[in-house]
C-alpha cells in the first residue's frame, strides 16, 4: 500500500529520504521527519490498537504526548524490545519494527472484540469488586483469567544491550518548552547573561509554531523560530536540549530532563568503534529559576462512539497536515467550541480535501478564523455539536444536532453528515503537570475554562501554560517571564531591548464551555461516550461512580481508573471532572483539582538508573591485598561494601575443597601452627586531644582513665537506649593519642557517632577524630608459631614479658615501619600487624616467604568466625541485634558502673525492662548429639511438647562444627540463660526433628585464656 494519505506537498518532512518500517509485520514506507504516527496515518492505517477493556478498534487521536491509543511495541530483537511506545512521539527510523500491543489473533480481526461487545455491558466500573467472590476457593482461578488480559506491551526477556547516562546540570534559568513563549523567555534570559537550559520534548524545537498559520515579522513563524534557535545555539551560556522531556519537577527547583539521545535512530544505540553513545541521558538539573512554557493540550469533546478510528483532535489534524504533509481522511466534520479549532477546517480545505461542515456549539461565532471559513464557503452549523459518530472500524458519518449545553439536552433534529473524519475541540487545558509535581494545587479559571499552575517558589509560567493563547500575547508573556526569571536568579535583566517581534494580532471570539455532548438517550443508555480512551472509561461510568457515592474526583478516578493510563489523563481528566461535576451538581473546582505525579511521560527504568547498574551498581571496596586473595582463588563474602575473603579453598587431588573442608583445615592450622587473616577492613579512627581519654570514657561502657601508652583495651559502645551498637579495641598511643578500631560494617557509623556527640553535646572537649581505615593495612598472624614467624621479620622485641597480651609496639616488619598489636580474636597467640597500606603487599608476601616452613595458612572470615565463637567472642550484628545490652551478654566486666560521667547507654540499663532477670541472655549451647550442628536462627523452647504457637525463649545466633573440639557448638540467647547453666533446651526444626542442647558457658575453648597468653 502506498502512502494514500500523504499530500503531494508541504510539511517539514524530507521527501528525499524514504524510511522503511514494519507495522504488525507488514512493510511500509515513510519519510525522514515523520513520527511513527504520521507515517501510519500517511499509509492509511486506521486501526492501531484494540482497547484495554472492551477490545474496541482504536486509531490515532492526537499528535503528541496526550495520545492514548497508539501505544505500540517496538524492537527488532528480543533484547531491544520496548513496550508501550507512544507512536506520536516516536521518530521514524529506517528498519523500525512496531506491533500493536493488544488484539488477538490480530488487531484487525480481533476475537476479544466480540467478547468485549458482548460482555461490555457486564463490565461497568467496579465490576471486579462486585463479583468473583463465590466460591472463595475459585478466586485465584478467576484471577488467572483476569491477569491474562492485563497489560499493554511486554517486557523484553533478555538484558538490555544499551547504557544510560546521567549528567548533573546547574543553571540560572531552565526553560521547559521551546514554543513561542519558551523561545522568547530563553532568548531574553540568555541575552542577559544567564546560564540557560532550554529543553523541548519534540524532535525539533518550535512547538505550536511548527504548524502555525501565523506570521511573525511578516514571514512564516518558523523562520523566527530558526533565527532564535540560531542565536541561542551560538551562545556559550545556553544549552539546547531537543528531544528532551522534563519529566519530573522536584523540590527546590530540581528538575529531571530525559534526553532521548538515540531513540530516533534505532532501537539500540549506534556505536562507532569503541565509543558508544548512551541510549538516553537524564539531566539532573538544579535550576535557580524555572520557566514553564509547556503550552496547552486540546480537549476533545465527549460524544457517542467518539473512539471509532477517524475521530481526532482538531489540532492534531492541523499538525498532521502542516507538519507532516498527511491528511488523515477525505471528508471532515469539525465539532468545536472555539475559534482556534477552525484551523483544522482551513488546513483541511487547503490540503484539497472536503470540509463537510463545522459544527460549532456557540450561537454566534465571530472571530477572524470564523470569518475566513465563511469566506471559503465552509458550512457552519451553530449551537450544535456532533452527538455521535457512525461507523465501526472507521468513521462513516457524524450525527449532528442542536444542543442545549446548560440543560444538557439535544434541542433539535438530528442530522447525519457523511464523512470519514471527525475532528473535535472542546477548548484547551494548560499543561500544568510539572507544577503539580511540586505539591502545589492548580487553580481553576472560568475565563479560560482550565486549570492554571499554582504558585511555586522559583517558577514562572508563561504562554499557554498559564492560559495565554493569542500569539502576540504569548511572545510578550515569554519575554516578560524570561526577564522576571533572570532577575529572580539575581541577574540584571535590563540589557534587552527591541526583542519583541511583530505579530499580526488575530481576533478570536470567546469560547464556550462544553465537555460531554448530550445525546438523545441518557448517558447510561447512549452508545459509549469515552472520556479516558486508554482505560475505556466512559461518561456513563463516571455517572455510575457518582451514583454509587464516589463523590470526590479522587474517588471517581480510582473507581473508574480514569487518568491511570500511560497518558495520565492528559486528554480526559478535565472532561471527567466536568462530567462528575454535572452529575453532582457542583462546579469543577468543587469536585476537586487534578493532581499529576511524575513522570510527565513515562521514562525507562534504565534511564533513571543510569550507570548505576551491573559492575557499577554499588562500589566494591578492596583491601590492599585483594589481588593476592584473587590469585589464591579465595571465595569472597560481602561485608558492607567490602569484598572480604570468606575462605581459601585448595585443590586437593584435583578436587576443590568445600567451604566445610577448607574451614576445618584453616581452623586447625591456626590452632596447631599459624594462620594469617587480612583484617584491613576494620574501621580505624585516630583520636588526638587533651580530652581524648575523657571522651572515650563517655562513649564506651568501660573505663579508660588508666590505660597507659603501649596498652590496648577492648570496649563496648552503646546507644543511649542501652543497646550494644559496636565494639572493638582501642590502643593508647600516647597520653593524649588513641587508635580506635571498629567493626567493618560499623566504621562509618561510629565515626559519625563520635562527631555527633562531640559537635552537639560536648564541644568543650578538646579532641579530634580522623579516619585512618584506608591508611593502614592490618594482617593478623595467629597461632602457636606466630611469634617464631614474626621474629624472623621484625626488630620488635617479642619476648612475652616485654610484649604482653594487650600490648602494642612499634618497629619494622619486613623492613616496613609497623605498629604491632598483641590482641587476639582467635584465642591463640596473635599479632595484628599494621603497616601503611602501600607496603602491605610487600609485608604480606614476605610473611609468606618466611612462613612456608610453618605452613602459614591464609584464612578467611568463616574461619575467623569459628575461632572466635569457640572463645565465646561476639560479633556485633550476628550475636546481637539492637535489642541486646552488655549485661545481656554477660559482659559486666566491661561496664564501668562507677564512672563519674553517666556514659552513653548507662541510664537505660536501669529501666524496668532492662532490669528484668528473664531477659534473653548470651550463652553457649552444646548439642546433646555431638554430630549435630544446630541451625543458626533455630528457635529455642524449654518445653518441646507444647502445641503451636510455642513459647520461644531464644535463638541460636552462631553455630559451627569445631574441628578442634570435634563437635558442633553454638552461641545463643536464652531467657534468663545466665542462671540456667546445665539446663537442657530444645530446638524444634522445620523437618520435625527436635534437637536437644545443654546451656553452657559461651567459652568453649581455653576458658582461662592460656593459649593467647603464652
Amino acid at each position, binding site marked *: 500500500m502506498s502512502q494514500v494519505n500523504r499530500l503531494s506537498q508541504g510539511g517539514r518532512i524530507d521527501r528525499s529520504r524514504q524510511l522503511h518500517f514494519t507495522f504488525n509485520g507488514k512493510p511500509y514506507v515513510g519519510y525522514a521527519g515523520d513520527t511513527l504516527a504520521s507515517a501510519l496515518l500517511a499509509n492509511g492505517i486506521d486501526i492501531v490498537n484494540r482497547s484495554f477493556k472492551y477490545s474496541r478498534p482504536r486509531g490515532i487521536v492526537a499528535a503528541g504526548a496526550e495520545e492514548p491509543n497508539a501505544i505500540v511495541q517496538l524492537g527488532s530483537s528480543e533484547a531491544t524490545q520496548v513496550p508501550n511506545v507512544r507512536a506520536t512521539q516516536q521518530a521514524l527510523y529506517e528498519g523500525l519494527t512496531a506491533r500493536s500491543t493488544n488484539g488477538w489473533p490480530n488487531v484487525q480481526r480481533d476475537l476479544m472484540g466480540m467478547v468485549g461487545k458482548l460482555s461490555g455491558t457486564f463490565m461497568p466500573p467496579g465490576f471486579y469488586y462486585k463479583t468473583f467472590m463465590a466460591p472463595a476457593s475459585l478466586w485465584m482461578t478467576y484471577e488467572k483469567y483476569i491477569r491474562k488480559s492485563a497489560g499493554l506491551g511486554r517486557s523484553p526477556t533478555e538484558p538490555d544491550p544499551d547504557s544510560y547516562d546521567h549528567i548533573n546540570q546547574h543553571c540560572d534559568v531552565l526553560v521547559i518548552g521551546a514554543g513561542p513563549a519558551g523561545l522568547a523567555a530563553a532568548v531574553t534570559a540568555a541575552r542577559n547573561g544567564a546560564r540557560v537550559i532550554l529543553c523541548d520534548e519534540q524532535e525539533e524545537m518550535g512547538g505550536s509554531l511548527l504548524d502555525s498559520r501565523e506570521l511573525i515579522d511578516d514571514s512564516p513563524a518558523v523562520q523566527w523560530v530558526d533565527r532564535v534557535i540560531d542565536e541561542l545555539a551560538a551562545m556559550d551560556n545556553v544549552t539546547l536540549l531537543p528531544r528532551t522531556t522534563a519529566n519530573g519537577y522536584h523540590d527546590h527547583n530540581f528538575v529531571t530532563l530525559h534526553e532521548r539521545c538515540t531513540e530516533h535512530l534505532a532501537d539500540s544505540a549506534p556505536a562507532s568503534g569503541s565509543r558508544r553513545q*548512551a541510549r538516553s541521558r537524564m539531566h539532573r538539573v538544579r535550576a535557580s529559576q524555572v520557566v514553564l512554557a509547556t503550552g496547552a493540550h486540546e480537549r476533545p469533546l465527549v460524544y457517542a462512539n467518539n473512539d471509532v478510528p477517524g475521530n481526532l483532535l482538531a489540532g492534531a489534524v492541523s499538525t498532521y497536515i502542516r507538519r507532516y504533509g498527511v491528511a488523515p481522511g477525505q471528508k471532515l466534520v469539525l465539532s468545536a467550541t472555539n475559534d482556534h479549532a477552525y484551523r483544522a477546517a482551513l488546513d483541511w480545505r487547503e490540503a484539497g480535501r472536503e470540509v463537510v461542515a463545522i459544527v460549532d456549539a456557540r450561537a454566534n461565532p465571530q472571530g477572524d478564523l470564523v470569518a475566513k471559513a465563511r469566506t471559503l464557503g465552509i458550512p457552519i452549523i451553530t449551537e450544535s455539536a456532533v452527538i455521535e459518530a457512525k461507523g465501526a472500524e472507521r468513521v462513516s458519518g457524524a450525527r449532528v444536532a442542536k444542543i442545549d449545553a446548560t440543560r444538557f439536552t439535544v434541542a433539535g433534529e438530528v442530522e447525519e453528515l457523511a464523512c470519514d473524519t471527525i475532528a473535535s475541540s472542546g477548548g484547551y487545558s494548560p499543561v500544568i503537570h510539572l507544577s503539580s509535581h511540586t505539591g502545589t494545587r492548580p487553580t481553576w479559571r472560568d475565563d479560560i475554562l482550565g486549570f492554571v499552575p499554582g504558585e511555586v517558589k522559583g517558577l514562572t509560567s508563561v504562554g499557554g501554560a498559564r492560559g495565554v493563547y493569542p500569539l502576540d500575547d504569548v511572545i510578550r508573556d515569554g519575554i516578560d517571564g524570561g526577564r522576571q526569571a533572570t532577575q529572580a536568579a539575581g541577574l540584571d535583566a535590563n540589557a534587552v531591548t527591541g526583542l519583541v517581534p511583530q505579530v499580526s494580532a488575530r481576533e478570536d471570539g470567546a469560547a464556550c464551555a462544553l465537555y460531554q455532548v448530550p445525546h438523545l438517550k441518557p448517558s447510561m443508555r447512549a452508545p459509549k461516550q469515552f472520556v479516558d480512551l486508554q482505560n475505556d472509561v466512559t461518561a456513563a461510568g463516571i455517572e455510575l461512580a457518582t451514583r454509587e457515592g464516589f463523590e470526590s474526583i479522587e474517588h471517581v478516578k480510582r473507581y473508574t481508573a480514569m487518568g491511570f493510563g500511560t497518558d495520565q489523563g492528559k486528554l480526559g481528566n478535565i472532561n471527567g471532572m466536568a462530567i462528575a461535576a454535572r452529575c453532582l451538581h457542583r462546579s469543577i473546582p468543587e469536585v476537586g483539582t487534578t493532581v499529576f505525579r511524575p513522570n510527565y511521560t513515562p521514562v525507562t527504568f534504565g534511564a533513571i538508573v543510569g550507570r548505576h547498574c551491573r559492575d557499577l551498581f554499588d562500589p566494591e571496596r578492596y583491601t590492599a591485598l585483594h589481588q593476592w586473595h584473587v590469585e589464591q582463588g579465595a571465595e569472597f563474602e560481602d561485608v558492607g561494601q567490602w569484598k572480604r575473603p570468606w575462605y581459601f579453598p585448595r585443590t586437593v587431588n584435583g578436587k576443590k575443597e568445600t567451604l566445610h573442608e577448607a574451614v576445618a583445615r584453616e581452623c586447625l592450622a591456626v590452632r596447631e601452627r599459624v594462620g594469617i587473616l587480612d583484617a584491613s577492613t576494620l574501621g580505624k579512627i585516630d583520636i588526638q*586531644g587533651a580530652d581524648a581519654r575523657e571522651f572515650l570514657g563517655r562513649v564506651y561502657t568501660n573505663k579508660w582513665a588508666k590505660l597507659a601508652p603501649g596498652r590496648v583495651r577492648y570496649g563496648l559502645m552503646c546507644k543511649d537506649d542501652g543497646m550494644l551498637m559496636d565494639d572493638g579495641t582501642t590502643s593508647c598511643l600516647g597520653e593524649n593519642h588513641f587508635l580506635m578500631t571498629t567493626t567493618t560494617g560499623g566504621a562509618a557509623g561510629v565515626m559519625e557517632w563520635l562527631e555527633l556527640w562531640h559537635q552537639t553535646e560536648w564541644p568543650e572537649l*578538646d579532641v579530634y577524630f580522623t579516619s585512618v581505615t*584506608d591508611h593502614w593495612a592490618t594482617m593478623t598472624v595467629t597461632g602457636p608459631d606466630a611469634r617464631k614467624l614474626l621474629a624472623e621479620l621484625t626488630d620488635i622485641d617479642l619476648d612475652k614479658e616485654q610484649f604482653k597480651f594487650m600490648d602494642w609496639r*612499634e618497629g619494622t616488619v619486613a623492613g616496613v615501619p609497623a605498629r604491632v598489636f598483641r590482641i587476639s580474636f582467635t584465642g591463640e597467640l596473635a599479632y595484628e600487624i599494621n603497616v601503611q*597500606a602501600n607496603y602491605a*603487599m610487600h609485608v604480606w608476601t614476605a610473611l609468606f616467604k618466611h612462613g612456608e616452613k610453618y605452613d602459614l595458612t591464609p584464612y578467611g572470615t568463616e574461619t575467623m568466625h569459628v575461632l572466635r565463637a569457640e572463645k565465646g567472642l561476639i560479633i556485633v550484628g550476628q550475636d546481637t541485634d539492637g535489642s541486646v545490652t552488655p549485661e545481656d551478654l554477660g559482659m559486666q566486666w566491661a561496664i564501668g558502673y562507677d564512672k563519674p560521667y553517666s556514659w552513653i547507654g548507662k541510664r537505660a540499663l536501669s529501666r524496668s525492662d532492662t532490669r528484668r532477670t528473664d531477659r534473653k541472655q548470651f550463652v553457649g549451647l552444646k548439642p546433646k548429639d555431638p554430630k549435630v550442628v544446630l541451625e543458626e536462627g533455630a528457635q529455642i523452647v524449654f518445653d518441646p511438647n507444647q502445641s503451636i504457637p510455642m513459647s520461644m525463649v531464644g535463638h541460636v545466633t552462631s553455630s559451627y562444627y569445631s574441628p578442634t573440639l570435634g563437635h558442633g557448638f553454638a552461641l545463643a540467647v536464652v531467657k534468663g540463660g545466665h542462671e540456667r547453666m546445665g539446663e537442657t533446651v530444645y530446638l524444634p526444626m522445620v523437618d520435625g526433628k527436635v534437637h536437644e542442647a545443654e546451656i553452657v558457658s559461651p567459652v568453649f575453648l581455653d576458658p582461662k585464656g592460656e593459649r593467647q597468653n603464652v
Partner: protein
Amino acid sequence: MSDVKEFDTRPAGSPSAESPLAWSFHRRGTPPREAGAGVTLREKAFLGHMVLRGGAIVLDEAVREVLGITLPARPNTLALDDSGERSIQWLSPDEWLVIVPGGEEFALEGRLREVLGQAHYSIVNVSGGQTVLTLRGEKARETLMKSTPYDVHPQAFPVGKGVTTVFAKATVILRRPTEDTWELVLRRSFADYCYRWLLDAAAEYGVTVER
C-alpha cells in the same frame, strides 16, 4: 598536642610499594592510547597526605612558617606553593588536607608539631589511605558532570577551588589546581570503583590513561 605518638610509616629502604590503583591497572590494564581522546587520566601516586585539624588562627601561623603557604581560611579553597607541588585544602572549619611530595610528610609533621607546641590540634598521616587522580582534556568537565552533583562550571568552580562531594556512589575530594587540570583525591578502598566509573563514563569521548 604533645603526648601524641608520631610515627613515620614510610620505610627507610625501598621495598616495593603498591598504589591504591595497582590492582585496577593489573586487572584491567589501561585503555589503548587513542587519538583525540577527550579525557586523560593519570595517577599521582605515593604523595604525602596529611589531615590537619585545629583552629584556623593557630594552624595558619604554623603552616606559613613551615610550608610558606597561607592556610586557606575561606571554605572550599585550595592553596598551592609556587612549585605547585605542595598544597593545603580547606575541608571543614577545623580541618585541612595537606598534600606534599612523597617522603616529606613525616618531617613536615615534626616541624609543625614543634611550632604548634601545646595548642589543641591534630595531625594525622593518611598517605596510605588515598591517592590523587588527575583528569585533563576537552571532555574532562563533562565527565565530571556525569559523576558528581557539584557544579563544575568555571563560574562555580574556578581554579583554586576544592570540595568534598559525592562522586557516583563514593565520596571524593575534587579540586582544580590549574586551569586545565582537575584532581580527584580518592580513598584507597574506593579507588578501583571510581576508576572503573570514570572509564565507563568517559568511554564515549575516548579516554587515555597515562602511566
